[in-house]
């Protein structure tokens, strides 16, 4: 009996140590990517290529979901606000919830599942087919040549995608509230403009999306490079990327919100 208890405790200890070791490896890998980023800044063409795959190809899902999230917010907000006779505040509500929370968070979740997983699969397959090892043999640093450009493309795309998401959302809210339902055009915009603050709301939302971009890209490239070089290993790593980065986005969002909007 005591043997079982001891082995159970050992299991907990083993997992904790493994988790800490993994976290340490990820941190070291993140620093390594930053250290080797010089090449991708010098040869910016590499980053541009990856921007196409991670930024441009994610655009359609970001635009469509932004539009629909905004439309739903407009509809639901109108239903509730018109009970209190303040349906013109629907613009404020849509803009604030998008710019502060939904824009950065939902865009980052979508980005993690579309572009983050693609990043992991690409790097993982390159590792499994020994392309990375081959580069190493030719004295080409795979981290500088393959990983860093993808990382930076992710970091650059994320804030832009989040901004596009928010703008599309506000447009969707406008479409539903003003065009379909008939809320007054002028008060929709003027209430929104007087209640959305540049520094508190928009700048903080932008900073949030930058953090999310760094987190998602760092997790994606690490999982790709750390995966077992088999088909199963790549598949496990991809699942892990999406799960870990989604959890990190939500946790990070809570922490950042607590810092940014406390006492308002």
């Amino acid at each position: 009996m005591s043997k079982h208890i001891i082995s159970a405790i050992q299991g907990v200890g083993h997992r904790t140590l493994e988790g800490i070791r993994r976290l340490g490896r990820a941190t070291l890998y993140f620093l390594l990517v930053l250290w080797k980023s010089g090449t991708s800044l010098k040869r910016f063409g590499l980053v541009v290529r990856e921007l196409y795959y991670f930024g441009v190809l994610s655009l359609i899902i970001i635009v469509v979901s932004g539009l629909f999230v905004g439309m739903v917010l407009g509809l639901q907000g109108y239903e509730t606000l018109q009970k209190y006779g303040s349906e013109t505040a629907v613009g404020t509500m849509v803009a604030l919830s998008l710019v502060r929370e939904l824009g950065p968070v939902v865009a980052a979740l979508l980005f993690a599942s579309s572009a983050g997983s693609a990043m992991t699969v690409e790097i993982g397959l390159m590792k499994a087919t020994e392309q990375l090892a081959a580069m190493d043999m030719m004295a080409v640093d795979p981290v500088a040549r393959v990983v860093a450009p993808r990382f930076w493309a992710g970091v650059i795309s994320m804030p832009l995608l989040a901004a596009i998401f928010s703008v599309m959302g506000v447009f969707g809210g406008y479409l539903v509230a003003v065009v379909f339902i008939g809320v007054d055009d002028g008060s929709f915009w003027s209430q929104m403009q007087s209640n959305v603050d540049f520094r508190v709301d928009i700048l903080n939302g932008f900073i949030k999306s930058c953090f999310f971009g760094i987190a998602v890209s760092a997790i994606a490239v690490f999982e790709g490079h750390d995966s077992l070089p088999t088909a199963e290993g790549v598949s496990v790593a991809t699942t892990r990327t999406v799960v870990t980065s989604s959890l990190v986005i939500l946790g990070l969002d809570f922490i950042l919100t607590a810092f940014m909007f406390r006492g308002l």
Partner: protein
Amino acid sequence: MQRATLDLWVGLFVITGIGALLVLSLKIGNLETYHSGGDTYVISGNFENIGGLKVRAPVKSSGVVVGRVADIQFSTKTYDAIVTLNIENRYQFPKDTFASILTAGLLGEQYVGLDAGGDEVMLEEGDTIMRTNSAVVLEEMIGRFLFDKASENDDF
């Protein structure tokens, strides 16, 4: 994919993204009304009670925004609130201007209202407004009303 097409798509993406950021800051966040940084002067006023006034609340005169609340402090000398106001330079107010804390609508946000007086001398940087009027606190008003009602009934 051809290099030129790739560059074109990425260029479009980056321009759209930056455009979205600009729309957010200018159209939605209203950054245009923000750059009144250097061309303001500072005046302050002591209020007995500021109610729910917040920093960056508008300062209005005849309903026009003429400045913003810069700072709110509590004074331990006079035991009242010192409200610092940034007023745009193009709006000059006489020395005997009356400042009061008002509420936009029934439940709206609070702002500082300035009523110009008739003095020849204008308020300058660092001056203090002498005549102020506190915010209306709903509980106090209800309390006074009940008190008045009670004393009315005594007459009978």
